[in-house]
């Protein structure tokens, strides 16, 4: 953890243990080294059970998730409810301890404990919650919410210093005039303003990584864009690594450089947002895109709400998930091999990858059985 204390030592970022493949593709695309990385992350929430002689059961919420967040880049994590996307954010924020795998911050191993060195870690990694109506304390003013992280992380030593920084923070999230907002209570603010306060609170720690868990899904349509644009400009200006968790794949296309799709705790596809949304490869991504509302369909003539989806049904229970690829019970192209083992990662070029047997080595077999 000593490395966390010195902040931006460039050499420290090139720590050993960086995944060879990701490092290579990063160099190709001219990206920086990841600041926060998850490698084969797993999380099982144990279930309470009385029969101690039986094997412990658990909710297998996240299975083998790897991702890398880079400074100045936005990575979107897309999935339905129950896909484990929020669990990933909370693992990265260390609200939960992971079961196996590894989290690396600037190449440095991060303990699975949710207490050891947590404050230092949070100084660099901050989480924004979905619901601004419950993430702010109703009995405290905006000023209090922002002063706490400043004091805790030692950015402000005196009250005057804190006040000045709070003013600056509020200006950064476009809550002006700052003086007026400082003394307000959460109930005096609209949803969009509350979410801005939540963002300002995260920024108060001066983080390098911002984990935004559905930051706009509770807001009105006309306000969403403002908040998303704010996050994007912060990302650009301050070179924050941004994880944008959403169920709205269309917004991922616009706001994220890179999009990853999760299904039932597994990563199924990922790559540059444009590639993932415009030429989806995994059957689940295709399903997701087909299901998303899209008025353009009306104009192009393919508008037909009754048009059949590729796959029906709902995501499985994660206590007893399907073996192999968890999508196989719904997948129209499922093969025997899909039931036995989770498909390895297939690189499709240009940083686009998928976990599906339809692509890669046994592709010949796959296309045969699919047709």
């Amino acid at each position, binding site marked *: 953890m000593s490395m966390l204390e010195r902040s931006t030592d460039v050499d420290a970022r090139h720590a050993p243990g960086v995944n060879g493949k990701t490092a290579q593709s990063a160099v190709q695309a001219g990206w920086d080294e990841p600041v926060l990385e998850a490698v084969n992350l797993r999380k099982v929430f144990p279930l309470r059970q009385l029969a101690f002689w039986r094997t412990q059961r658990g909710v297998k919420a996240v299975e083998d998730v790897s991702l890398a967040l880079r400074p100045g880049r936005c990575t979107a994590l897309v999935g339905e409810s129950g896909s484990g996307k929020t669990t990933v954010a909370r693992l990265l924020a260390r609200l939960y301890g992971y079961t196996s795998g590894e989290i690396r911050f600037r190449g440095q191993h991060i303990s699975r404990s949710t207490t050891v060195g947590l404050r230092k870690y949070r100084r660099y990694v901050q989480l924004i919650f979905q619901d601004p109506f419950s993430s702010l304390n109703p009995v405290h003013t905006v000023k209090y919410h922002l002063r706490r992280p400043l004091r805790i992380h030692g950015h402000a030593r005196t009250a005057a210093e804190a006040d000045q920084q709070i003013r600056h923070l509020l200006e950064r999230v476009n809550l002006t005039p700052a003086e007026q907002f400082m003394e307000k209570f959460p109930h005096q603010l609209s949803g969009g303003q509350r979410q801005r306060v939540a963002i300002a609170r995260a920024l108060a720690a001066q983080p390098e990584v911002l984990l935004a868990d559905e930051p706009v899904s509770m807001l009105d*349509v006309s306000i969403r864009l403002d908040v998303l644009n704010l996050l994007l400009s912060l990302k650009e200006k301050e070179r924050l690594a941004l994880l944008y968790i959403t169920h709205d794949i269309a*917004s991922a296309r616009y706001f994220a450089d890179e999009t990853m799709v999760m299904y039932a705790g597994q990563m199924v596809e990922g790559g540059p947002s444009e590639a993932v949304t415009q030429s989806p490869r995994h059957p689940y991504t295709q399903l997701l895109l087909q*299901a998303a*509302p899209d*008025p*353009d369909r009306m*104009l192009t003539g393919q508008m037909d709400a009754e048009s059949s*989806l590729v796959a029906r049904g*709902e995501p499985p229970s994660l206590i007893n998930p399907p073996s192999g690829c968890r999508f196989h019970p719904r997948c129209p192209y499922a093969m025997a091999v899909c039931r036995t083992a989770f498909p390895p990662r297939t690189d499709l070029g240009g940083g686009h990858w998928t976990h599906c047997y339809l692509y890669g080595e046994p592709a010949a077999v796959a296309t045969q059985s699919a047709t």
Partner: protein
Amino acid sequence: MAMENVLEVKHVSVDYGSASGAVHAVDDVSFNLKRGQILGLAGESGSGKSTLAYAVARLLRPPAVVTQGQMLYYPRPGLEDKNEDDSLSPIDLLELTPAELRNFRWRKLSIVFQSAMNALNPVLSIETQIVDVLQAHNPSMPRKAQKARAAELVRMVGIAPDRLHAYPHELSGGMRQRAVIAIALALNPEIIIMDEPTTALDVVVQREILAEIMGLRKDFGFSVIFITHDLSLLLEIADQVAIMYAGRIVETATREQLYRHPRHPYTYGLLHSFPSLHGARRSMLGIPGSPPDLRAVPPGCAFNPRCSFAFGACQTAVPALLTPSSEAPEQRVACHLYDASLNPDGVPSKLRAAEPAQPDDSPLALRKGEVQ
């Protein structure tokens, strides 16, 4: 299907009484619902869309009061059940006595509530809840027939028959919503109000439910008032769309007209607020500011503080819902920009453009694929 009106809402206003005076949640709203049509009501939270729908169902309780207006319901000619006077004269829903209202609700108009979790009784099985509805409105129906009808309804909305005896907690969110739709269909109503029926659901399930609704509408020919804040969804399913802002309808048009040529600056902003999935990336503008507090609605056009085209008249006079051009007689908009006497400069070029989807750069595939 003849396109006569099944419901005409005329100049309806709803106030919520509060300590600081009345809050006008719905202000002088008129619309027509045609038989077999899906009318979409879109608006942000606080725009009055749910209040309006509940006013139509006469479900509002004090402090909400319908202060003015008429809601005329036209019974279907030649309807089999003749358990009331079968005259074809319109019925004003606001004049109904409690007994008549009981007869009207569910038989003629039913509601699908937003949260299926709360709409269903957790301690009764799905079958019991459907039979309950039949029993309440059709007590003469034999028990066996009621159960058979329950099974039929459940099958219609795509729930496996063996789930009939399941309790709500045993069903997934999508299945619960289907069960609620089955209950709404129980008496074969003519109008179904759907209040954000898919908001709490995932996109894939949402798509399935919508397909189900479209299919059922084809089979049974009911009309739908579909309330949602998701304009992109509405543009896919609704025949007619009404956009609400601060308790008023600011624009109403068919979905094609609305999408191709939004006239009201608010509609224009809304259409540029959600990202598109296909085609070129279009510029997204959003709308500055936030929706008004209904306790202190700005004078004149309620949208004027957020409107980039606002001029003098917008702050003083409330615009009426008028037809902006003879090319689109169905489209009506409440905006002073289209009033030549107030705005001699003419409509801003942005709102004149025939395409809502202004591409960022290159001409896009979307335009080529477009018919006409």
